[in-house]
């Protein structure tokens, strides 16, 4: 525990940006901890990492961590990150987004970044709600669940983020929850290490805006729900379709070895007689 705190402290910007904006019981801090431990394990220096984020609760993560950090416009983080990566392929770029940020307003950018297979790591913190603006329903709010703009229950079919990005061509897709913090560390490490576009969905609890409206209990109750319903991917595949219920797979869901965008582009430059990094 003490060692973890030391690691955390090494990467925080304590004098500038605290207290942070996250509510008591929020899961985003756990996700940030996992990200820091994963980066520590990669051995990259702070200067070699660029942390890009969108708008919303998760988007604030870039403010608190001591890397090259870019807090972009809502939903557009992946486009900014694409420009950085193409301009300087040596940089390791991690893009933190929330569920609304990544799959609603930024949905178009998400699917096309998958398709291009640009060497970026996307960390999507999914808490099933727009937290910062006060609990409106997002593309991952489950059917019939309540939100401040779905007082009678949501009637929209939610996205499965991992299935979405898999279908769009991401090289690496994984999921963990705030209960599975150590698994999240390991998955993020793999994702950062992976060449090509990687997506890690971190399921997180929002007790204030989502849990409260939907009688999910305390933050601990919400994390216990993650524990009870998360199933490792191989085991999940064996569950008969009729018996899935609320269960969902965690761990590595997709791991492909395909040339990334820059590898292909470098070939174009070479053929055109140009010279590139």
């Amino acid at each position, binding site marked *: 525990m003490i060692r973890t705190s030391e690691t955390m402290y090494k990467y925080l910007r304590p004098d500038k940006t605290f207290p942070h904006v996250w509510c008591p019981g929020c899961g985003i801090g756990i996700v940030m901890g996992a990200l820091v431990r994963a980066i520590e394990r990669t051995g990259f220096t702070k200067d070699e990492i660029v942390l890009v984020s969108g708008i919303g609760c998760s988007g604030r993560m870039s403010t608190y961590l001591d890397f090259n950090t870019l807090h972009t416009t809502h939903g557009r983080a992946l486009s*900014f990150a694409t420009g950085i990566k193409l301009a300087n392929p040596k940089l390791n770029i991690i893009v933190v987004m929330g569920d609304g940020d990544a799959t609603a307003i930024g949905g178009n950018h998400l699917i096309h970044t998958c398709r291009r297979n640009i060497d970026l790591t996307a960390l999507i913190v999914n808490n099933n709600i727009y937290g910062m603006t006060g609990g409106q329903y997002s593309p991952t709010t489950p059917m019939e669940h309540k939100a401040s703009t779905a007082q009678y229950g949501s009637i929209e079919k939610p996205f499965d983020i991992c299935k979405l990005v898999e279908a769009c061509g991401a090289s690496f897709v994984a999921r963990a929850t705030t209960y599975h913090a150590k698994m999240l560390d390991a998955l993020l490490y793999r994702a950062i290490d992976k060449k090509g576009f990687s997506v890690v969905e971190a399921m997180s609890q929002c007790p204030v805006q989502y849990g409260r409206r939907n009688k999910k209990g305390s933050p601990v109750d919400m994390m216990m729900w993650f524990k009870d319903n998360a199933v490792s991917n191989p085991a999940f595949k064996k569950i008969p379709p009729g018996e899935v219920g609320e269960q969902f797979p965690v761990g590595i869901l997709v791991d492909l070895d395909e040339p990334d965008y820059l590898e292909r582009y470098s070939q174009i430059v070479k053929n055109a007689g140009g010279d590139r990094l």
Partner: protein
Amino acid sequence: MKRHKDLLLHGNEACAMGALAAGMRLFAGYPITPSTEIAEFLSVELPKVGGTFIQMEDEISSMGAIIGASLAGVKSMTATSGPGFSLMQENLGFASMAEIPCVLVNVMRGGPSTGMPTRPSQGDVMQSRWGTHGAHPIIVLSPQSVLECYTLTIHAFNLAEKYRSPVIMLMDGIVGHMWENVQLPEKIEVIDRPEPSVPPDWYDPYDDLPGGEIVPLVPFGEGYRYHVTGMVHDKSGFPTLVHEEVEQCLDKLTFKIKNNLHDIIRIEEYMLEDADICIVAYGSVARSAREAVNIARSWGIKAGMLRPITLWPFPRFHLENISKRVKLFVVPEMNYGQVYGEVLKSCPKRAVRVTRVDGELITPAQIIEKIEEAAL
């Protein structure tokens, strides 16, 4: 790049060549008439010089990508037209707020909405100034010829780097698609991003330095770790709501432009020394205006032309000076009078407009007609 002489080029091509000459090495864009030739040309030429061309999924992400590239230290550009320009406003505001140098080319077509994709217009003069939310200045340049598409694009990059600001090249469909025989200049001035003068620990990317000196933007990855945000920020780049810091952040955006008007504003005066009538024209319309001046002069009417090459910040002081000498301003433009309104603001003298929004260029005869009418 090989220096060319005596080339037959169209405006869009010259603009793209100017960008390459200025050192632009990343272009991100989305196809749209009448700007697409810029993207097509650069998709061929950028790989040859080791640069990056990428066609994005829309104009929003195109603007995002060029901001990202600029933050990584590479001069970057996008090109679009009306509907795409509307989509770019969000991230254009970000570039202004976060003070990221980049160049946005807007080859204006008829609007509003889808409007007339293949017909020219000058309808985006006000959008280029006021299109984003919030208050911030912007630099907007308007070329009248193929050669100027080349030279002003280089100038746009220089201003972007010098003032850490997005710069808009506001072309129109006629200038973009017009072919001319041009001699590109042998020597050009290219301003690159300066090195920081302080070590990382002392670096504040948004510091307000005495004398209005602008802090160089250090590319990501060079040891100067800092935070960039579209939120109102303090001098170190972190969000703030402290009144003094908010004011300082926003004032700085305004004054870095306002205090350098003499350096930023370029105009052309044509036969204005003894003129009674001053035509104010820009872009392709300035070509008709020049001819109208010649015709009027041949009839003994003392006409002249002021051509704002820099549309924003608007050359108000130049107009004020000229208004002391002339009796009448005539403002022809391919909209309902966007610059005409600025002329009215700048000088209390009589001003009339010549407007045209049917997708055709204003002719010298139309301008002459207005001069005759007003002279009666």
